[in-house]
């Protein structure tokens, strides 16, 4: 039980009253797993990830990483945000090093570490580029390298490929699988893209909306992980099961939108 979410509840006080966003969420993720949580827009996915990251405090319940309760943000959990969060005035190398710099790692060591992870994400050639000179996919790869550089226990990702076009997305999927196999890191990723989730993960949590709850936990067993698998019937079955699940809740959610 490497990452554990126990009876997590989160509500916000708004002008119109109390908004229950997350209700009784329970999750258990083992070391080395690649887990996705899928849910419609507004189902509280980002909110859930923020509690795990320690950027917000749950109303009740707890989050444990490697047995220790989460009380605040910290580099033991690497985070890749939904929107690009590279520091625009730093070049790729500086961005990748930044976490290590904050943690007091000496210049030489952090330079080596950053270079290593830039090699891992395949951006060594762009070490001196500014974020604005990168495409969306490259930006997220730098964000991943930056998170990995601190050698976190778990990598948290919030719809990291939502803003990418379909081709870039595909190559990022291959990249992620490759990275995961090479580094053997624990990954918890959030997405609304069902195919993405099926293609990447060992297990999927399907979230229901308003309030966000775990509707179903689906273990994924695919014959292989190349993009040919997407034509496989088993892939389609997973996809359709999830789609149906979400379509229903998604429509509820849309109807509830003002």
């Amino acid at each position, binding site marked *: 039980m490497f990452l554990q979410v126990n009876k997590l509840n989160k509500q916000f006080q708004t002008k119109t009253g109390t908004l229950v966003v997350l209700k009784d969420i329970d999750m258990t993720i083992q070391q080395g797993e690649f887990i996705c949580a899928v849910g419609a827009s507004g189902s509280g996915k980002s909110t859930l990830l923020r509690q795990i990251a320690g950027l917000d405090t749950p109303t009740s319940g707890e989050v444990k990483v490697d047995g220790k309760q989460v009380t605040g943000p*910290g580099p033991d959990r690497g985070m890749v945000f939904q929107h690009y969060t590279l520091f625009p005035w730093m070049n790729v190398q500086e961005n990748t090093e930044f976490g290590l710099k904050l*943690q007091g790692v000496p210049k030489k*060591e*952090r330079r080596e*570490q950053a*270079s*290593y992870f830039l*090699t891992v994400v395949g951006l060594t050639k762009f070490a001196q580029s500014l974020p604005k000179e990168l495409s969306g996919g490259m930006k997220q790869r730098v964000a991943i390298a930056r998170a990995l*550089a*601190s050698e976190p226990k778990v990598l948290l990702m919030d719809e990291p490929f939502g803003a990418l076009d379909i081709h870039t997305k595909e190559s990022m999927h291959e990249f992620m699988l490759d990275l995961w196999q090479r580094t053997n890191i624990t990954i918890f990723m959030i997405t609304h893209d069902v195919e993405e989730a099926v293609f990447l993960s060992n297990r999927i949590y399907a979230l229901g909306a308003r309030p966000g709850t775990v509707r179903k936990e689906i273990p994924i067993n695919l014959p292989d992980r190349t993009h040919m698998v997407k034509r496989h019937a088993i892939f389609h079955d997973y996809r359709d099961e999830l789609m149906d699940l979400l379509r229903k809740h998604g429509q509820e959610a849309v109807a509830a939108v003002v």
Partner: protein
Amino acid sequence: MTSTPHRSIQSFIKPKLIRPTVFWRLAEDIPKPLYTALTITSIALPLLLWWMVTTFGNIDPKFLPSPGKVLEAFGRLWSTRELLKDTVASLWRVGVGFLFASLFSIPVGVLMGSFPSIRALLEPLFGLMRYMPAPAFIPLLILYLGIGEEPKITLIFIGVFFFNSLMVMDTVKFVPKDLIEATYMLGGNRWEALTQVILPHVLPGIIDACRINLAAAWQLVIVSELIAANEGLGRRISVAGRFLRTDEIFVGLIVIGVIGLTFDLLFQYLLRVSCKWASQKR
């Protein structure tokens, strides 16, 4: 792949903890009661300090009058109606000067922001004029406009016009080009894009620029009332300064400060109302 033994980094990392805090919250809201308390402190603390210094310190009241003396001066000037008259006179001058300046600078600024040609035509001149100290124009204003209300108002006009034009111009830069092109595609011409799209879009920006420049207008009230004024807060302050009636200087300053802050809050309210449609908070 390099062969760097990258697992070594852990030994260099010094763990740190971010302690939860209320007062030092960074870019996060603090609880409402704390906010209110601090706001009250903001005004009360300086008042208290002032009172302490004048009461327990051995300070010549000519140099720093006590709050009591200032209150007394306030009462005196109020009861003779002089303060009311001064306030109305200055309010009117600053108001009219500022109003005219806004009336001219807003269209000019919008045009400068919208049309690069007009910007090229006016920006260098305005950039030059903006630096010229408004008080320098006093002798010229007396020559051209006499000693009535006109030169006083014109001085405030000059002091606000150029700044406001350039600041309004800057806000127009942020209108998304997409919206203008959408207007063309819907059958609008340039004039319609200007009046029906650019103008409503920059309205909050214009209000904000005006808010800042209203403060600039009040900065000129003393100088403008050097021109043969018989009443006005600026004149009261400069006469008081001449006779070292520090208590009256403080009365004048505080009245101006309070009036200014009132208008500031009014503008902030207008700003909030005018950009209700914006998804981002201002």
